[in-house]
């Protein structure tokens, strides 16, 4: 079997035992990228030289008898919102074209430390704003299942890279579903850790109180291994939790649900949900029951307000977070002809450097924070946030985890919702509540929708710091489904 088809855990073991070298593994993935990425467009930057150099260093350390971590030598692709000091970091925006940061994000630094080999930086919706990766200034990424469809977003480059075997692992960020939704629509695993469980330092901010770095992988165990490798307290991020990382790897290995209480959120379903998605979700719930879980219907009445609250809070924070991109200290500068003022140059730079969705959200956020509107919009949205947290709290008194479809529909065709923001925003309907309250949530594949043959994801939500429960249930579902399917769902994907 080709090295690119192996799991991260397998690759780590092969490298550690010396059966294959990190350089061989890296080269195999670089070859795969060269072969398929012209079609997929998952990568914004491929770091061939530095990847091979990093791989050689792992091989040398192994040869010298140094102990290696479980993922040493395993390649990874980073969403291009994590700063990397040896390669460009653009956030998918023209305003940062060619920008090279002088420092590494904590996630980047920790994974370098753990010996992972950075293949490059992946495409995304500009500044992580979007659900399709069509909002990238560098062209859309395509879904490996159907190149005419979107790979989800905003971390669409990362989901597509893993789903098309260009990388066994990738990082993403999840602000309203930007890891779980792309994972769901490309048939892979994507996890949003508990807010504060993974460091935001060096993650180019979209919405500070929501942004959460997390892993993509083709199976639950790999996701857990990556999760563990970059998580844990970081003194550079004030919102980082000062607690032990939940035992995610152990939970992924355990993978059982016997006796577990699983809540089905009553409010998710009905209008706007694709029948094929609902069908696969119901099967997954039945499967859980057959595995010994107790299924309970749970009501979360405020979840219906999560989407509007999110589309006030996230734009408000982004309108402020993105103010620093003004062409004064770094990045694009437009219109500085010696006569224009700084004010004018800033406005021209930002108009030229930001795409339509970013501008839309900046203005929406500016509006929501304006005097006279603050209370009705931003203020009310913050109250909804309290209500969502209360709903979760009440639900987790009754059950151990909550489940729902990850997305209301499967991947839609590129261009379909491009100029219809409200339709686009619906993609995050089921994922947003966990962001507003900081809960852990994962998406695992649960089959293909009958209508279009595209992947469907099952979302498993757990309490704050209950990340291990996501992996435990996810692994159980994965094992049962793979037994039924005769292998991972991804084997059904067309070969590129």
């Amino acid at each position: 079997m080709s090295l690119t088809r192996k799991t991260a855990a397998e690759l780590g073991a092969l490298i550690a035992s010396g059966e294959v070298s990190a350089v061989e593994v890296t080269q195999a993935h670089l070859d795969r990228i060269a072969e398929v990425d012209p079609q997929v467009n998952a990568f914004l930057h491929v770091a061939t030289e530095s990847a091979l150099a990093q791989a050689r260093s792992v091989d040398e350390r192994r040869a010298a008898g140094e102990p290696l971590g479980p993922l040493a030598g395993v390649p990874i692709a980073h969403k291009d919102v994590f700063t990397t000091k040896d390669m460009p970091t653009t956030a998918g925006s023209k305003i940062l074209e060619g920008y090279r940061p002088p420092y590494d994000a904590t996630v980047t630094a920790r994974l370098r430390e753990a010996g992972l080999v950075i293949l490059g930086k992946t495409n995304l919706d500009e500044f992580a704003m979007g659900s399709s990766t069509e909002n990238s200034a560098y062209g859309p990424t395509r879904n490996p299942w159907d190149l005419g469809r979107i790979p989800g977003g905003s971390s669409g480059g990362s989901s597509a890279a893993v789903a098309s075997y260009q990388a066994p692992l990738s990082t993403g960020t999840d602000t309203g579903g930007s890891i779980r939704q792309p994972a769901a629509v490309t048939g892979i695993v994507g996890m949003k850790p508990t807010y504060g469980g993974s460091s935001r330092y060096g993650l180019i901010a979209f919405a500070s109180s929501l942004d959460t770095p997390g892993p993509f992988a083709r199976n639950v165990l790999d996701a857990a291994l990556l999760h563990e490798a970059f998580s844990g307290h970081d003194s550079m991020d004030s919102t980082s939790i000062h607690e032990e990382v939940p035992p995610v790897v152990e939970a992924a290995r355990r993978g059982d649900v016997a006796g577990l209480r699983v809540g089905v959120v009553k409010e998710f379903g009905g209008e706007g949900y694709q029948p094929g998605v609902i069908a696969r979700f119901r099967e997954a719930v039945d499967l859980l029951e057959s595995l010994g879980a107790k299924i309970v219907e749970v009501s979360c009445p405020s979840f219906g307000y999560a989407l509007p609250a999110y589309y006030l809070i996230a734009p408000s924070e982004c309108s402020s977070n993105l103010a620093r991109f003004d062409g004064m200290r770094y990045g694009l500068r437009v219109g500085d002809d010696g006569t224009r003022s700084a004010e004018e140059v800033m406005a021209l730079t930002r108009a030229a450097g930001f795409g339509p969705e970013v501008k839309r959200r900046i203005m929406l956020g500016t509006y929501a924070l304006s005097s006279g509107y603050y209370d009705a919009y931003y203020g009310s949205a913050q109250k909804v946030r309290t209500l969502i947290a209360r709903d979760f709290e009440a639900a987790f008194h009754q059950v151990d985890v909550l489940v729902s479809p990850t997305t209301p529909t499967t991947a839609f065709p590129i261009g379909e919702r491009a100029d219809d923001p409200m339709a686009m925003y619906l993609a995050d309907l089921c994922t947003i509540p966990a962001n507003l309250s900081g809960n852990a949530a994962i998406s695992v594949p649960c089959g293909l929708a009958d209508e279009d043959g595209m992947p469907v994801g099952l979302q498993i939500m757990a309490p704050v710091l209950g990340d291990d429960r996501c992996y435990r249930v996810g692994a159980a579902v994965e094992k049962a489904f793979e037994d039924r399917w005769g292998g991972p769902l991804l084997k059904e994907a067309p070969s590129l």
Partner: protein
Amino acid sequence: MTTTHSVMPFDEALERFEPVLGLETHVELGTASKMFCGCSTAFGAPPNTHVCPVCLALPGALPVANDKAIESTIRIGLALNCTIAEWCRFARKNYFYPDMPKNYQISQYDEPLCSNGYLDVEVGGETVRIEIERVHLEEDTGKSTHVGGATGRIHGADYSIVDYNRAGIPLVEIVTKPIPGTEKLAPEVARAYVTELREVMRTLGVSDVRMEEGSLRCDVNVSLMPRGAGEWGTRTETKNVNSLRSVERAVRGEIERQAAILADGGKIVQETRHFHEDTGATTSGRSKEEAQDYRYFPEPDLLPIAPSPEWIAELRAELPELPTARRRRLQAEWGVSDLDMAAMHNADAFGLVEATVKAGVPAADARKWWMGELARRANESGTPLAELPITPEQIARVVELVASGALNDKLARQVLEGVLAGEGSPDEVVEARGLRIVSDEGELSSIIDQVLSANADAADKVRSGKIAAVGALVGGVMKASRGKADAGRARELILERLGVSE
């Protein structure tokens, strides 16, 4: 730009209008590192050497609050008799400006760390209570230099260059409530408040409060209301007031300017004005097309501040003796009048007198020298008292020499003059200038003989019982000895010689 307006003489302005003051003071804290990152706060470093991803607002960087800055702010709040918030947040103040890297300032909005306090200041022997609205923590901006144009001012410059070393230095903002009722003393009250605040900061050791380096900056709000009116007038905010004297001048100038406009039937525009140290005048800031909307919201990158009651109690217990308490104690110890206290306060002489007392000088003497001879000399040379080149120890030595009879007051003044002129220690000056009192009986006797023979009339009067006439003879001795004679001894010897006893 025409900025000259007529002004109304201060006294007339006060007859017609009542001033209301407000003061906003920014104090840069003397922490080692910046507010939200580990960059040094040292003053005067080469440009952009004290910057990092956080204070340059590079993509992805995040702030983490400096614990010492939080502690210092709480201590300032306690010293100003404020209530300390049980729970409060930082907020983002959003506006674009090139010297502010994030294009928002991390500040506090409706949840200041400290609120509702007061500071008592003394003006003209009276205590005025200044109510404090709030004390909150924020961050400083970078520094722009304007290139091209005539004067290095922002107006007419071709472009600017920015150094972000100062960006992110912790800044405490202290805002008073409106201060009515100061009347003619308004300028002095404003100055006394800033002076007192500066002393509190020094006593707490939280800042070096150097106005000339910008570590203490003051904005002065002034409004006038016509006598008998029930409502306060429109206020202006004068920025860039960078010395104590300027605080006083700015208030006075703004009262005179506003009074002239109001008396003319004009209206005061609510605006920012800039104080010019050179002329003492204020000019209008650029009028803004639209009112600023700062879109404050709670800073999501930082967690709420919730100081425990135990911690606050601990900080309260550890507060040093504050200037007011210290002054009261010293007044009692020194036994001086309120007026003398006020005089010392105004002359910035407390610390000097106290140090001199510590060096062993009786309080009355210490005060006499600092507030008399030395204050006069300081005034003459236009230097602050504290900057005179003389130490409390040197004064103590001079006082010791007087007490031992080696010097009299006149000679002592000459010794001080020598010390101030850089001629060395008091003993060295005495030696070099030959300022010892003439107590050698032989030398004194011969001077007395000369004086008696030259003033026979006076001598006769004394002999005939008019003892008061001895004063002229003693004066003659002093004159002949060029002040070096011991006047008391000279008198004794003259009376003895003339066979008269008292």
